[in-house]
């Protein structure tokens, strides 16, 4: 009875194999790029974070079947994609936002550089 369903999943799971090989290659490339090249730090960071995002997308699409569950009932696949995209937005806001907010203005230097005024007047923080 299961033949029909099984037919779709026979043999070598190419999707997984390709995903796996790509993830290994991307990892090795990121390490090589970060540690063995002489480019500026900013470019390195940009590239390795770009690679990380590509690799995360690979996992989501090739391994986790993110877009599945849409044909069976309603629009679950779309909800899942929307949810992950909104999660991506929130993640960017939290990480980039926090770093930006806490590293500009008076907050930009750490206290060891003799700039002790970085510790803001805590009395002025009682804001709601």
């Amino acid at each position, binding site marked *: 009875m299961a033949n029909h369903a099984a037919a779709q999943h026979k043999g070598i799971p190419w999707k997984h194999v390709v995903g796996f090989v790509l993830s290994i290659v991307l990892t090795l490339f990121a*390490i090589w790029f970060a540690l063995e090249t002489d480019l500026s730090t900013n470019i390195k*960071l940009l590239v390795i974070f770009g690679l990380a995002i590509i690799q995360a997308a690979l996992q989501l699409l090739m391994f986790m079947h993110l877009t599945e569950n849409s044909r069976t009932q309603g629009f679950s696949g779309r909800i899942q994609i929307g949810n992950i995209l909104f999660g991506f937005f929130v993640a960017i806001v939290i990480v980039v936002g926090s770093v930006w907010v806490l590293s500009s203005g008076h907050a930009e230097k750490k206290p060891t550089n003799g700039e002790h005024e970085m510790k803001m007047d805590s009395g002025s923080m009682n804001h709601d």
Partner: protein
Amino acid sequence: MAQSKVRDLNTPMEYQSETGRLNILGFWLFLGAEIALFSTLFATYMVLMDRTADGPALGELFEVKGLLIQTFLLLTSSFTCGLAIHEMRRYNVKGLFFWMITTILLGLGFLGFEIYEFFVYIHEGANIGTSAAWSAFFVLVGTHGLHVTLGIGWIILILIQVAKRGLTPQTTAKVFISSLYWHFLDVVWIFLFTAVYLMGMVMQHG
């Protein structure tokens, strides 16, 4: 809540019951929450990573070799976990068990390396109370490690259930959800690998 009686054979078993479909969607939403959780930990780490006080700098203690082994263990476990689901969809219980147990073993190997790594750092004078940067490191990486630990325990519980009940719409949905969790931990590790280890070493060595 009604169980659908007619099985659509084109649909993987985990999607065949209403409960299964609801649970899979709900778990995706939970993963959204996990994204926010880890993002907050990453933000904390990024803000604090230069604040090493009197302790060692983060990049000073990182090693490429251990990092590579850990990364390959986890990447491979994610792959084998995917194969397990592939076998499950072919109704091959043996294959499912073989690949899932491989996944667990790889996960245990990963955990072993992580614990060893933590011991090395503590030995070299970096623990959770050393500086803000090390607090952030241990809690971020440790939270991921805790997730892996819970994941292993959870997959074992589900495998016991599959052994007892075989493949049903309910057990397959559980296996599928646990696989989503496992892949997600790999996604988090990719960012740990990049934002913590690679960035730490780039900052250290320029």
